[in-house]
C-alpha cells in the first residue's frame, strides 16, 4: 500500500510531532489540575471533617490465624495436634524505649541472649505495630510474673497461640515431619500475606508436602483501640478458615510395632497396602522427637542429633540408598522369563563359583564353602535357595540394557512419586549411566555384579517395597501414597504420577509367587525359619548385601571387621501369599544376614498386622 500522505521532509514531521506534544500536554495539564483539585478539596475544603474522623479513628484490622489442619492415621488416631502455648511479644512502637523494656523483662524472667538476638533480627523485618515474639512457650510462673507487672511493661504482651504438637513423639517423625519457624530463605519464597497470622511453616515430611492444604486461610478482626493504640474491644470478625485435616493410609499400630522392634538399630521398614498403594507403615530408625523443632530446637539438642553417628535425622526409608542384594532376584527372574532368555525348565549346575572368560577372579556363590547349590538348579530353586550362580548366568544372557529398562517399570532406579519431598532415585546402572558418571565403558563383570543386586546398583527401602507391591499385584501400576483424604474427601496430590505399565505373562507371575512362597514355606527356603506356626502364608525373599568387597580367596568373617562394614540384612515380602494385602521391605544396616536378622523381624511385624486385621474382622462380625 502506498500511502501518499506520508511526509518526506523532517521539518514537517517535527511540526506534526510538536503539535501532538502540545495537544497531549494541554490534556495532561487539564487532568493534572483536576487531580490536584481533588487533593485541594480533601485537604482544604473537607480538612476539618477529616481531622475529626482521623482523631476518632480507633478501628484497626488485625489478622486472625487459622488453626493448622490435623493429621490422622487410617483409624482416626491423632498424629499431629495443635495445643495452646503462651508467648511474650513486643510492639516496638508502644515500648517507648525498647532497651529499657528489654532490661526490665530480663530482670523478671529468664531471656537468653539467643532470644534477644533472634528478636532483633525479626525486628528489622517487621511492619509498623506488628507483634514481634521475644520468648516462646512461657511457663505458668513466667506468665503470672508478667501479668502482675504488666502495668509497667508498656509494649509487652503475653499472647496465646496454637502450637503444633506431635502426641506420638518419635514414632512418626520421619513421615509426618514437623513445622518450625519460618526462616529468612523461606520468607523470601512464600506469600507473606498468607502467613501474617503464624510464624510456623512445614519443614519436612507431610507437614511440608501438604503445607498448602494444612495452612488454612487467614481471618480478620476489626478491633477498637484507644488513642495510644491499645486494643479495647473487638468489633467484627471475619473468621479464619482452618487448615484441612488430613487422613493418612498409615496404620499407627503397625508403625509403632515396627519401630519398637527395630529400636535403635539403623534400619528402615516400609509397608504398602496393595489395593490402594497406600503406605501402611514407614519407619526409619533411630528416630527423634519432632516436638523439639516446633518452637526452635536448642543448639545442644541439635548438635547432638546431627553429630550422632546413627544419624537419627536421616530418613532411611526414602533417602537411604542401599545395594538391594538378592531381594531383586524375583524381579530379574521375571525379566528373564518375559524376555524368553530362560524358561521355567531351564537348569544350570552350580559348583559354587562362576568364571567369566578372560577374568582371573571368579565370582563366588554365598554358599561356595559348601560347594555350591549342586546340579540341575532351576529358577524356582535359585530363588528359594538364593543361588547366585544361576543369576550370574542369566544376568549376562539378558544384558544390562534390558535389565535396566525392565527394572525401571518395577520402580527401581527412579523416584517412586510418593507424596514426600527429598526421595532419592537410587541407581539402576546401564552402559550410558556408567559412561556419564564414571567415564568408563561397561564390562560384563559389572553386569554380573548387578545381577545379584550388587555392584553399582542401589535402591531405597521405599523402592524395594514398591517393587514388591508390583510383583504381589501382578504388575499393577502402584504409586505409593501417604494421604488418603482431606477433610473426609478422597485426596492425593500424586495420583497422576506417570508409570510405564508392566506387561508380564500371567503364568510367570504365578510361578514367581509360588517360588517366593517356597522361600518361607519349604525347608530349603532361606526364610524357612519364620514360616513355622503361621496361620497365613508369606511370600518373600531374603537379601544380604555386601558393604565392602571381600577378596575371592578370603573368607568374610564378621569378627574380623568393623561393625559399620558388616553386611546389610534385607527382606522383602507380601502376604497372604495367595491373595496379597500387604507388601513390605525391610533393611537393617550392617545387620548381617537377611535370613537370620531381617526376616524374623518382618515376621513379627506381619503377625501384628494380621492379628489386628483379624481382631477388626471379629469386632466387625
Amino acid at each position, binding site marked *: *500500500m502506498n*500511502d501518499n*500522505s*506520508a*511526509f518526506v521532509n*523532517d521539518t514537517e*514531521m*517535527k511540526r*506534526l*510531532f*510538536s503539535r*501532538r*506534544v502540545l495537544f*497531549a*500536554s494541554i490534556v*495532561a495539564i487539564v*487532568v*493534572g489540575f483536576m*487531580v*490536584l483539585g*481533588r*487533593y*485541594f478539596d*480533601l*485537604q*482544604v475544603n*473537607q*480538612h476539618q*471533617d*477529616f*481531622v475529626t*474522623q*482521623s*482523631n476518632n*479513628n480507633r*478501628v*484497626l*484490622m488485625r489478622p486472625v490465624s487459622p488453626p493448622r489442619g490435623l493429621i490422622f492415621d487410617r483409624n482416626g488416631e491423632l498424629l499431629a495436634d495443635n495445643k495452646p502455648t503462651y508467648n511474650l511479644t513486643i510492639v*516496638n*512502637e508502644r515500648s517507648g524505649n525498647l532497651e529499657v523494656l528489654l532490661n526490665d523483662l530480663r530482670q523478671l524472667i529468664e531471656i537468653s541472649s539467643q532470644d534477644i538476638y533472634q528478636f532483633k533480627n525479626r525486628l*528489622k*523485618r*517487621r*511492619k*509498623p*505495630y506488628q507483634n514481634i515474639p521475644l520468648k516462646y512457650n512461657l511457663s505458668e510462673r513466667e506468665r503470672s510474673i508478667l501479668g502482675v507487672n504488666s502495668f509497667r511493661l508498656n509494649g509487652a504482651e503475653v499472647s496465646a497461640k496454637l502450637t503444633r504438637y506431635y502426641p506420638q513423639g518419635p514414632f512418626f517423625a520421619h513421615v509426618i515431619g514437623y513445622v518450625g519457624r519460618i526462616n529468612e530463605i523461606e520468607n*523470601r*519464597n512464600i*506469600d507473606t*500475606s498468607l502467613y501474617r497470622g503464624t510464624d510456623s511453616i512445614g519443614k519436612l515430611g507431610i507437614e511440608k508436602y501438604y503445607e498448602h492444604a494444612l495452612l488454612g486461610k487467614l481471618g480478620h478482626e*476489626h478491633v477498637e*483501640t484507644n488513642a495510644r*493504640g491499645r486494643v479495647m474491644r473487638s*468489633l*467484627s470478625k471475619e473468621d479464619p478458615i482452618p487448615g484441612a485435616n488430613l487422613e493418612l493410609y498409615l496404620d499407627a499400630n503397625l508403625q509403632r510395632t515396627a519401630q519398637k522392634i527395630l529400636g535403635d538399630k539403623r534400619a528402615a521398614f516400609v509397608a504398602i497396602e496393595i489395593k490402594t498403594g497406600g503406605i501402611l507403615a514407614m519407619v526409619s530408625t533411630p528416630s527423634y522427637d519432632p516436638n523439639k523443632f516446633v518452637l526452635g530446637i536448642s543448639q545442644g539438642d541439635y548438635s547432638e542429633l546431627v553429630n550422632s553417628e546413627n544419624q537419627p535425622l536421616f530418613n532411611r526409608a526414602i533417602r537411604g540408598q542401599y545395594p538391594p542384594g538378592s531381594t531383586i532376584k524375583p524381579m530379574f527372574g521375571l525379566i528373564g522369563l518375559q524376555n524368553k532368555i530362560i524358561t521355567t525348565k531351564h537348569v544350570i549346575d552350580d559348583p559354587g563359583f562362576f568364571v567369566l572368560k578372560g577374568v582371573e577372579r571368579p565370582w563366588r556363590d554365598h554358599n561356595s564353602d559348601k560347594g555350591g547349590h549342586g546340579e540341575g538348579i532351576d529358577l524356582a530353586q535359585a530363588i528359594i535357595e538364593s543361588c547366585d550362580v544361576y543369576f550370574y548366568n542369566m544376568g549376562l544372557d539378558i544384558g544390562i540394557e534390558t535389565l535396566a529398562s525392565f527394572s525401571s517399570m518395577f520402580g527401581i532406579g527412579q523416584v517412586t512419586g510418593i507424596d514426600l519431598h527429598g526421595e532419592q532415585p537410587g541407581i539402576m546402572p546401564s552402559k550410558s549411566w556408567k559412561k556419564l558418571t564414571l567415564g568408563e565403558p561397561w564390562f560384563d563383570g559389572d553386569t554380573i555384579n548387578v545381577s545379584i543386586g550388587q555392584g553399582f546398583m542401589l535402591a531405597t527401602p521405599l523402592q524395594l517395597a514398591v517393587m514388591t507391591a508390583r510383583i504381589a499385584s501382578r504388575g499393577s501400576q502402584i504409586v505409593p501414597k501417604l494421604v488418603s483424604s482431606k477433610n473426609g474427601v478422597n485426596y492425593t496430590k500424586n495420583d497422576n504420577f506417570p508409570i510405564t505399565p508392566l506387561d508380564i505373562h500371567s503364568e510367570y507371575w504365578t510361578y514367581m509367587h509360588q517360588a517366593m512362597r517356597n522361600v518361607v514355606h519349604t525347608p530349603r527356603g532361606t526364610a524357612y525359619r519364620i514360616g513355622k506356626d503361621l496361620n497365613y502364608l508369606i511370600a518373600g525373599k531374603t537379601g544380604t548385601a555386601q558393604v565392602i568387597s571381600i577378596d575371592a580367596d578370603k573368607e568374610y568373617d564378621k569378627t574380623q571387621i568393623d561393625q559399620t562394614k558388616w553386611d546389610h540384612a534385607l527382606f522383602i515380602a507380601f502376604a497372604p501369599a495367595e491373595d496379597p494385602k500387604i507388601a513390605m521391605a525391610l533393611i537393617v544396616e550392617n545387620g548381617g544376614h537377611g535370613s537370620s536378622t531381617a526376616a524374623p523381624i518382618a515376621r513379627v511385624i506381619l503377625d501384628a498386622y494380621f492379628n489386628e486385621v483379624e481382631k477388626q474382622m471379629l469386632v466387625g462380625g
Partner: protein
Amino acid sequence: MYKSDFVRQLQTPGGGIQLRRSIQMDYTLAIILLILCGMGLLIIYSATGQSIFYVRRQLIFMLTGFFIMILFAQFPQRFWERWAPVIYLIGVIALIGVLQVGVEINGAQRWLDLKFIRLQPSELMKICVPLMISAYIAKRAIPPSLKHVSAAVILISIPVLLVVRQPDLGTALLISVTGFFVLFLAGIKRRYLIGAFVLALAALPSLWFFVMLDYQKQRVLTLLNPQHDKLGAGWNIIQSTTAIGSGGWSGKGWTQGTQSQLNFLPESHTDFIIAVLAEEFGLIGVLTLSALYTLLIGRCLYIGLSSPSMFGRLMAGSIAYTFFVFVFVNLCMVSGLLPVVGAPLPLISYGGTAIVTLLAGFGIIMSIGNESKKGRSVS
C-alpha cells in the same frame, strides 16, 4: 558506516582529559531524579514506622538504578534503535517464563526468580514496549500507514495479553498506554484515534463480563460507594482519604501522621505512599511533588522536541507521557477517583524492579539527549 565514527573517536587526542567529559548525561534530569528519590527515602522511612531496613534496601535499588541509568546514557542512541527488537524479544520471553515457572505472590504470577534477584518482567515491559514501537515506527513513513499501525498494535498486544494472563490487568493497561503514546506522537491519523476510542468504549462491557475477575470488579464497585462495605473492601479508600484530608495545608509533620503511624493505612510504603506524604506534609507537600514531576516530564519533552531523529522524539515523548499516566493513576487511586489497581507512585513507592526500570528508561532518554546536544554543536 558506523565504524568510521568509532575510528574518529579513537583518533581524538588527549584521552585522559576526555574521560571526564566522556561520562555523558543530562544533569538537569539527574538532579530532579535525585531530589525525587531523596523524598522517596524520607517518606518510606516514615511509612515503615522508622525502619532503616526498608530505607537501606530501597537505597540499594536506587543506587543500582542510577548506575544503570548512567551506563545506558553512555550508549549512542543508534544502539537503542538497533537493538530494540532484541530487547523486546527478551522481555517477551521473560514474560512467558513467568507464566511457566514464575513465583506466585498474592495469587498472581508476576515474578521470575533468578536466584540472586527477583525480577518482575511486566515492569520491564513498560520500557521495552515504547522502545520497540518507537524503533519500529521511526523507520517507517510518518505518519504511519494503516499497515504499520496494525503491526504496531500486534507488537503491543503480545506482551499485554501475556500480562493479562498473570493476571495483572492494571499493568497490562499501562503497558498498552505506553505503546499508544508512541503511535499518537507519531501522528497517527485522527480517524484511527477516534476509532480506537470508540473501540475501547465498546470493549468495556466485555472486559467487565469476560476478562475481569471478581476481586477486580469488587474494586470498581467499592470505588463507587466505599461506605457500603466500611470494614471490608472500602477500608483502604476510607483510610487513605482520611489520611490525605487530615493533612490539611501543611501536614502533621514528618513521622507524625496518625493514620500512617498507627497502622490504619494499608500498603503505606508501596501503593498508598502518597497518602503518607499528604498526611505528614500536607497539600504543600503534594504540590511540591507535583512540581518536581512536572519539571521531570517537561525536561523529557524538551529532550524529545530537540532530538534530530524520529526515534528519539517518539521514545522521549512516550516515556514522558507514560510517566505522567503512572503518576496520574496513582494519585487518582489513592484519593478515591479510580479503582485500586496496584500502581506504585513512580520513584517514591518502595519497590525494586519499578525504580530500576524507571531509571533505566531515563538513561535511554539521556542517551537521546546526548545525541541532540551533539547535533547542536555540529550545526
